[in-house]
């Protein structure tokens, strides 16, 4: 009995995909589940038509050598965009042709334009933070009914309203949701795009899990007062601001670390994730076994004599003890209960300490300050942080040359007030950043893909609002904007890339394998479909009744504005939106072009039964006259789906 079953399964597995019959793939004997008949024919057709293969096939790449098991996926011929488009697709959320026009006006050659662009972006953001000269963003924030409630609240007010008053869920969570939606608005509308790319980096570097009860009520403070004011400034200052932040103190438990019960959670991550990196850990080694740090070549930083090259478990313990008493004001600590950082001298361990091979020469609160000094001046902190920055801005495996060059700036300028800005400039203006060989060395994270798509398409037709988190019903009653915003919120969660919501302190992964998994791709694409078409009940009091569609991101009106009726052909529409989203300009001879096979499939989709790719389509057609004139029916929603599909192309995953 078992044998016959085994044979059957084996037959199925051996059968090549294209030849799989309707009943073959899943329907095995007495299985309780099988392909639903309605979809079986579709499945068979798709497997054939799309040349879909089993996820594992030895027929594709048979690897039997003993020394390597890496599936070596060969790189195909894919197009590399021109230099300015590459830069803009990396340094902003979503490409826009308007960005290219502005970029090209910044100088006489690419190098000059890039330098001016980076300066303008970083200086402009700093000059106007919080947003002053950011008209599009300001306009969105000023739209009535966006529901933001906590963005202007001080830490004291956040603490009072969201913690002390114990308002319960979802109210304690609003500072987090406000920050998530504000960030989404910034990524879509702000003109200071590079700042958003960097804010994402630093939030990932100093990651706290926003949805944790300890963190959510004060998240506005963490984003607005801790990360953003420091991210173009000085690392030592940023490190101290993070260490003293209410969010981090609570997230990694340092609030409760005392001489009677030291808690090493934060102190460990301080070295492992925030500064030296686990790569510079010496585990349980004795101090004498650890080599001395070597000064960074080309840097003027003068290292303390005897500074060790890395840290060991004894350093984690010493840092833990030095940080005892670094807590916040609560009803139990100083009774003021303000939620702000305080140093609680009675809780502090007063034993003498030694850190990274050198005695700590101060006492009390200053001990931890000296530890932060040693970490900030350390050449291996420079290398660890700069490698991560290069990984974000250039590629998963950045060339050593740029890591070392950036680390040299980081270390040399460790006391400069604009240290981090100088480091970012050094990376972006480098030959390695400009090198076309590094294009596609990163893939976009789902949030980048989604926010970027909305930005490329000109934003949303209504407004993005901080949804009411109580129930979907309540959002429906508040209108389409609320309903769509809440749908978007949950879908972003499903993509695995909801902002500020990575559980562990290592932050969102920053590598291709992490984000090219099937779930991030399919879930991000699902969100993209939904931003081009969402649904709304005809009667908000009767969500079980009829619904109608609407377009949160409306590309139909943009298209009708761009082309007179006679020119709204499949070919023109495809070329127009490929240019808007990906930066390939079919009209510009001699510039890189998306491959013809892809273009032809997009045209075939938009054309359907129309006479030719150049036949004008009726973009006002959104009705059910399919039987009479197929190519005229549902043309508007077809265009919406076309643009969604362009945003889902493999080319749009690259950066």
């Amino acid at each position, binding site marked *: 009995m078992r044998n016959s079953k*085994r044979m059957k*399964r*084996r037959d*199925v*597995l*051996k059968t090549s995909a294209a030849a799989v019959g309707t009943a073959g793939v*899943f329907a*095995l004997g*007495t*299985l309780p589940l099988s392909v*639903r008949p309605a*979809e079986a024919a*579709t*499945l068979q057709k*798709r497997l054939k038509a*799309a*040349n879909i293969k*089993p*996820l594992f*096939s*030895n027929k594709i790449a*048979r690897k039997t050598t003993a020394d390597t*098991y*890496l*599936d070596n*996926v*060969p*790189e195909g011929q*894919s197009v590399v965009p021109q230099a300015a488009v590459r830069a803009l697709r990396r340094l902003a959320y979503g490409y826009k042709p308007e960005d290219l026009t502005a970029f090209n006006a910044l100088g006489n050659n690419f190098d000059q334009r890039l330098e001016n662009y980076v300066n303008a972006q970083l200086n402009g953001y700093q000059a106007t933070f919080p947003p002053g000269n950011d008209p599009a963003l300001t306009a969105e924030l000023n739209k009535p009914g966006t529901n933001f409630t906590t963005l202007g609240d001080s830490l004291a007010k956040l603490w009072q309203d969201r913690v002390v008053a114990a308002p319960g869920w979802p109210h304690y969570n609003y500072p987090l949701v406000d920050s998530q939606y504000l960030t989404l608005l910034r990524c879509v509308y702000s003109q200071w795009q590079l700042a958003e790319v960097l804010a994402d980096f630093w939030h990932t570097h100093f990651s706290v899990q926003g949805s944790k009860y300890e963190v959510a009520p004060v998240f506005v403070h963490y984003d607005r007062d801790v990360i953003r004011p420091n991210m173009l400034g000085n690392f030592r200052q940023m490190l101290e601001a993070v260490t003293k932040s209410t969010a981090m103190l609570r997230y990694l*438990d340092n609030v409760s*670390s005392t001489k*009677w*019960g030291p808690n090493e959670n934060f102190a460990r991550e301080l070295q492992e994730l925030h500064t030296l990196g*686990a790569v510079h850990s010496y*585990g349980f080694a004795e101090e004498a076994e650890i080599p001395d740090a070597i000064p960074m070549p080309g840097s003027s930083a003068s290292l303390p004599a005897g500074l060790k090259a890395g840290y060991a*478990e004894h350093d984690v313990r010493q840092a833990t003890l030095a940080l005892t008493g670094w807590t916040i004001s609560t009803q139990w600590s100083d009774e003021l209960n303000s939620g702000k950082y305080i140093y609680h001298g009675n809780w502090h361990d007063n034993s003498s300490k030694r850190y990274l091979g050198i005695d700590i020469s101060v006492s009390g609160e200053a001990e931890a300050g000296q530890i932060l000094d040693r970490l900030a001046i350390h050449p291996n902190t420079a290398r660890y942080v700069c490698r991560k920055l290069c990984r974000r801005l250039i590629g998963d495996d950045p060339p050593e040359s740029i890591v070392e060059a950036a680390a040299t700036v980081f270390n040399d300028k460790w006391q400069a007030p604009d240290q981090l800005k100088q480091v970012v400039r050094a990376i972006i203006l480098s030959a390695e950043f400009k090198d076309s060989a590094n294009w*596609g060395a990163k893939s976009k994270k789902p949030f980048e893909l989604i926010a970027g798509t909305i930005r490329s398409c000109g934003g949303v037709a209504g407004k993005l609002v901080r949804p009411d988190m109580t129930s979907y019903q309540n959002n429906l009653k508040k209108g389409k904007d609320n309903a769509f915003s809440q749908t978007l919120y949950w879908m972003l969660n499903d993509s695995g*890339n909801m902002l500020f919501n990575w*559980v562990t302190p*290592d932050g969102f992964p920053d590598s291709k394998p*992490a984000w*090219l*998994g*099937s*779930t*991030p*791709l*399919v*879930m991000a694409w*699902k969100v993209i*479909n939904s931003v081009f*078409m969402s649904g709304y009940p005809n009667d908000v009091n009767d969500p079980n009744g009829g619904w109608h569609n609407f377009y949160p991101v409306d590309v139909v009106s943009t298209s009708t504005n761009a082309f007179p009726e006679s020119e709204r052909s499949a070919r023109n529409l495809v070329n127009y939106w490929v240019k808007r989203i990906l930066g390939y300009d079919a009209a510009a001879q001699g510039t890189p072009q998306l491959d013809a*096979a892809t273009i032809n499939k*997009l045209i*075939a989709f938009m054309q359907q039964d129309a006479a030719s790719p150049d036949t004008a389509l009726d973009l006002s057609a959104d009705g059910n006259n399919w039987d009479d004139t197929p190519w005229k029916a*549902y043309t508007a*929603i077809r265009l919406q*789906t076309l643009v969604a*599909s362009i945003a889902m*192309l493999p080319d749009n995953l690259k950066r």
Partner: protein
Amino acid sequence: MKRRQFLKEGALGTLAGGSMLSSELQAAPSYNEEILVHIFLRGGIDGLNIVVPLGDKDHEYYRIMRRRLAIPDTSALQLGSTEFGLNPKAAALKELYDAGHLAIVHATGTPNNIATRSHFDAEKYIELGTPGLVGTSTGWLHRHFAAMSGVLGKYPDEIFLPIVALRNNPPVSLLGNHSVLTVSSPGDFRLDNAHWRWDVSSGDNAGYMQMDMLPEIYALHNDEVSHAGNQALTAELILRSSFDRQYNGSGNLPYGDNHIARQLKDVAQMIKLELGTRTFALDYGGWDSHVSQNYSGNFDDPLERLSTALAAFMDDLNRSGGSPAERTTIIIQSEFGRRAYENNATGTDHGSGNIMLVIGKNVGGGKMYGNWPGLYPGTEDGWVDYANPENGSTLPELFEGALSTTTDFRRVLSEYLHKRGHHTMATLNQVFPGYSGYSPMGIFNTLPDPADVIFGSGFEA
């Protein structure tokens, strides 16, 4: 065909004259259909509070070091005649243990001399299968799969969903693998949400649809993003066509409604769908209990959920008939245990040795495995001033304040690979390079394989 190749490469052709061999070659290849469900308990689960020491001295040390957190011997569920008891919240596991389907290894993990107390490095040590190294380019589950499908010829040439990770991104244990499906929620994993007129073709929808076009475009190029998208779209189609979102199992025990319960329920369904999956990788995290481990939401509840869901999963498979229950093995581990001492915040900090749980019908269950190192804390630990010299020694049995590791986790995993996958010494060495401690503890029953009858495995004396 693969078998033949293996024979040649293995220089075993001298045996080719045997009549058994030629008949074996003419039959269909005997594929390995074993299913491994690997569950990683991220955060460092407190094994000492799950499988509690009840021996006189150790229980006393334990009670002293864990003033507020200890599970008293009066409430622990005694495991057979051992000196250990289960946390009462893991009562469901006790039933699996008594039924002979749960084996427990204690004091296991990464060897002391290379152990780390960093979550992220400790996880990499285990998932890469190269303790002490974090730069290895592939994970152990990938190398296992590659050996089975490659040199060992134990897998068919094509499998629809060979490996499923119920996560958003592949775990490090599958680093380097391009055949893994990562799907955190198979029921929601569908891409038919464009307007009905333009999403998928069916019935009178005969046009050129979005879901016709995208797979075609993703099949055009062979670069990394195209490959990934092609995989995603293939898996989407298979799951959309087969996965039942209402599936509730065939068993009598309730799974519960939580993260681990949903994952195990999804795994049970996918196993029964016979999609060819050989490896499922699951995560159940949140065990980093530095603070308030006595708060039920931080430890007791998740432990109870895990135990309940595991029992329901086994019951579901058992009652569905057929071979799934016979073919499935669950291995559960965490990156490290926690310190033997509780901290001042009624929590526990990062430690070393821990438990591993092995569940299945082909497991030597109802037993505990490993060497118990003891909990004598000595007097040298810098964190807590505790001295109890009555055993005549001040040398602690603890390692840096935590349960010492006496069984390398690779010893458990390699026994599985050999007994249930027929890995050879050569392929074990590829899965765990540099590991020479292969020595079965008897945790797994040996899966019969004709090849063993012919050649012998060379492992068992």
